[in-house]
């Protein structure tokens, strides 16, 4: 149930995420090491265009990537196909996107707190 | 039991999916008018059964660098000890050139190349030029896989696991109406009418204790042709390969080929005492031709006559186990999988029945005496005479399979309609097939073992009039017992034991003919060796045997070979041509 198009989307989104996740882990290590509190972290990220783009692209990529990944698992495990499979894919993607967008706003929007 | 037969119509019906059957399907499709229905029926799965797939050594074809069709032809005639039908042998050599190009260019085979990109060719024993095209030692896989793909991707009707059991003529007997089959998967009967039928079921001398052909081949085609009253030629000619694996009676590996190249590379044959013996029989020792080595091994086996130590041994270790492993990777691995160490140890071998030169009499266009019936491949007799050269087997099946397709495609244009079968024959064939279902069930396999012993001992590598008469008696006894052995009829779907029974029926019928034809040939030629008539006889007075069934009786007659192209003692090669182009080893 993966044609070339979905395959490319999944690989491209993965490639986008790879540096982002590693960067994120690095930031987390740094943050924990420096004993930063939630306020301190948010203070740095909120209002920063850089972090908005950083996490923004992650949210976008992960929605696409995970939706396709779960689509494959759902097809291979439960045999779903056709319209139902497509709606499941979109459903997962949109769910992740909306949750992700909320988190993104919370973390990077200027003066959110 | 009601005679429940489903009818099915087609235009061109092909039996068998070896080199002959698959090529016929492709050529028929090219030659027949559009809209012609083509059906291919086979005892196993398309392309996965039969012997063409098992071809190791390769494909003989004269492609230049000194080699010519004339030279290939002369080798074929001399190898066949002047018995081949010369027109057929010529056509074989001539068309092989076209067919190999077709295989490479149209079918998509890839044969081994020289470093400069040209085809690699080598020489099998008995050839005077490097002529054999090959793909490693798995040539048949390449040929059949490519042919199979072509047929699978075309609109040819496929009847897989359909076994042909009877050729059904028209009421007046002038032509063929169709073929009665068993759909093996369901166990139901199906009568397929067709305007033309190609029989390409590939012979297969599996009535010998040791044999190389695939398990599906049991001489069904020749047994059907015999019952249909068609003349069969050269039926005494059974080729033995000298080195079949001996793994015990319980194993299907027994009889399978250890390749010719082992001896060519310096492999030694040893007896139980560990001594080489082939030089006692021939100056060339282990490198002598197949028939000579087979007889050498057989004679040595008879001398030792030890029931616990039946075969002789092939030994490669003196060449260095690592070298052997490298040069014969596939063979070493195969032996290893079955528990033998070819590279470093001894492997027990016996001569093993390999190829059947005899077959239905056909013209050079594969037509038979019965209108609508065509025969090609190992089922057809004539091209090889008393001996088939290594590499001429696939050439024969692919060349004549293609010709059959062309011929049927052409002939069908003048055949308006399907013919009606002779109901009496149809019913008789049906009854023959269900006979065991009406007897008390019993084991079939012991009878197969008995037949294989009888043929090996009495109608095998070396024969005498006495042994063959004894063989005939034994066959008759086995046949009688077979008629008493039943198969439970409660589940006929994919019932292998029923088919074993039918296999036995075919094998008994043809075994009987082999012995009779063997009695009729009172000399020794090629594969046929009579201890009571060891001389080859006058070449100029060469005759071939023709066996034909009339009523319940099989008559064997002799007919003089027609030297239509070359006479014994002469050659068609230009003056001054060297005897051989193969560099001495």
């Amino acid at each position: 149930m993966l044609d070339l198009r979905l395959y490319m989307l999944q690989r491209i989104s993965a490639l986008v995420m790879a540096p982002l996740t590693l960067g994120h882990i690095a930031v987390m290590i740094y943050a924990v090491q420096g004993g930063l509190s939630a306020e301190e972290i948010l203070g740095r990220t909120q209002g920063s265009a850089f972090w908005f783009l950083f996490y923004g692209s992650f949210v976008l990529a992960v929605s696409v990537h995970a939706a396709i990944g779960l689509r494959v698992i759902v097809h291979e495990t439960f045999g779903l196909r056709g319209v139902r499979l497509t709606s499941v894919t979109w459903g997962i993607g949109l769910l992740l996107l909306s949750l992700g967008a909320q988190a993104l706003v919370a973390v990077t929007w200027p003066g959110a707190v | 039991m009601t005679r429940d037969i489903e009818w099915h119509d087609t235009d061109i019906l092909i039996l068998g999916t070896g080199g002959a059957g698959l090529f016929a399907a492709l050529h028929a499709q090219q030659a027949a008018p559009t809209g012609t229905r083509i059906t291919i029926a086979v005892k196993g799965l398309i392309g996965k059964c039969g012997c063409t797939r098992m071809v190791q050594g390769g494909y003989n074809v004269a492609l230049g660098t000194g080699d010519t069709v004339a030279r290939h032809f002369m080798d074929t005639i001399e190898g066949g000890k002047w018995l081949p039908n010369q027109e057929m042998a010529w056509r074989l050599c001539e068309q092989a050139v076209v067919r190999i190009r077709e295989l490479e260019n149209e079918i998509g085979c890839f044969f081994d190349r020289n470093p400069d990109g040209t085809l690699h060719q080598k020489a099998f024993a008995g050839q005077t030029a490097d002529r054999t095209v090959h793909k490693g030692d798995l040539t048949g896989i390449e040929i059949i896989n490519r042919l199979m793909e072509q047929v699978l991707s075309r609109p040819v009707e496929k009847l897989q696991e359909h076994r042909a059991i009877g050729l059904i003529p028209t009421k007046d007997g002038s032509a063929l109406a169709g073929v009665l089959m068993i759909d093996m998967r369901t166990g139901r009967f199906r009568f397929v009418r067709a305007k033309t039928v190609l029989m390409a079921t590939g012979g297969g001398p599996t009535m010998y204790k040791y044999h190389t052909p695939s398990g599906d081949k049991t001489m069904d085609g020749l047994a059907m042709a015999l019952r249909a009253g068609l003349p069969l030629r050269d039926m005494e000619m059974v080729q033995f390969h000298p080195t079949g694996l001996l793994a015990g009676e319980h194993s299907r590996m027994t009889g399978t080929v250890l390749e010719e190249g082992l001896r060519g590379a310096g492999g030694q044959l040893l007896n139980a005492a560990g001594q080489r013996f082939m030089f006692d029989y021939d100056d060339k020792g282990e490198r002598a031709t197949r028939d000579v080595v087979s007889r050498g091994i057989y004679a040595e086996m008879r001398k030792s006559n030890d029931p616990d130590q039946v075969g002789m041994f092939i030994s490669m270790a003196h060449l260095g186990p690592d070298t052997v492993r490298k040069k014969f990777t596939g063979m070493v691995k195969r032996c290893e999988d079955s528990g033998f160490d070819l590279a470093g140890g001894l492997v027990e071998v016996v001569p093993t029945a390999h190829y059947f030169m005899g077959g239905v009499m056909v013209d050079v266009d594969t037509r038979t005496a019965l209108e609508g019936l065509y025969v090609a491949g190992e089922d057809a007799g004539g091209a090889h005479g008393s001996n088939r050269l290594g590499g001429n087997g696939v050439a024969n099946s692919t060349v004549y399979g293609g010709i059959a397709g062309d011929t049927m495609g052409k002939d069908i244009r003048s055949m308006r309609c399907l013919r009606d079968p002779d109901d009496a024959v149809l019913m008789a064939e049906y009854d023959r097939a269900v006979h065991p279902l009406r007897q008390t069930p019993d084991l079939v396999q012991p009878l197969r073992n008995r037949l294989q012993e009888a043929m090996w001992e009495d109608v095998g590598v070396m024969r005498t009039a006495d042994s063959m008469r004894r063989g005939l008696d034994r066959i008759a006894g086995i046949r009688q017992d077979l008629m008493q052995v039943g198969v439970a009829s409660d589940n006929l779907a994919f019932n292998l034991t029923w088919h074993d029974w039918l296999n036995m029926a075919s094998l008994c019928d043809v075994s009987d003919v082999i012995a009779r034809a063997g009695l009729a040939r009172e000399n020794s030629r090629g594969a046929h060796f009579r201890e009571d008539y060891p001389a080859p006889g006058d070449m100029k007075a060469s005759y071939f045997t023709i066996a034909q069934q009339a009523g319940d009786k099989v008559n064997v007659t002799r007919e003089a070979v027609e030297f239509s192209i070359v006479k014994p003692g002469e050659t068609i090669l230009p003056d001054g041509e060297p005897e051989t182009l193969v560099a001495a080893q």
Partner: protein
Amino acid sequence: MDGQKDTLEVSVWRGTSSGGDFERYEVPAEENQTILDVVSWIQHYADATLTYRFACRVGMCGSCAMMVNGRPRWTCRTHVRKVLQGRRVEIAPLRNLPVIKDLAADMDVFFDKWVAAGGAHAPTAGRNDPIPPVDPQDSTRVTASAGIECINCAICYAACDTVTGNADYLGPAALQRAWTLFNDSKHDRRAGILDAVSGSGGCHNCHSMGSCTVFCPNDLDPMSAIAGLKRETSRRFWRKGG
């Protein structure tokens, strides 16, 4: 020789497409014995109705593949000694294919997919043309030759879990054949192959789980062949922009 023979305890799956179960047989043990010999013995001497399939007996035709102790194997070349667990062995029809009866699977889907993957040669020359020279050491040719000895036994197909879950997936053997043809300079529809393997059942479904390569009895490497197809289709994707 030694009068009393050892026996093997053999469980064989019996049934049809509508269901079945394992049945137990005692089979005499022999020095040289393959799984095919075991199955044949049962049919010859113990249960005349047992169905299985074989032809060549030597690993060339790929008709005899079955599940042996849960692993797909060519039974004519599988020595009993290699698979025996104590005295026991369990034999079932090939996985991922419909059963016809007992140990005989229906291979039609497998071959349909072979064709669907573009697995038949398309000629660039005819029978009256000379055979084109091909450098056997040329790297493209070497790639093509790597998969050429496939015997279409469907062992890889039975080993692949993706096939189990995804009925449309063309499977390793068919895709390997496509890759071989893609690298065959004599093949005419090389671009067509990339189309044939890019659909919803195509090469992109492969998760590189590698069971095909691990279990192939001929030591072929369908996994890498499929990776080759993914690479070429991706490359074309970038060039053509989808």
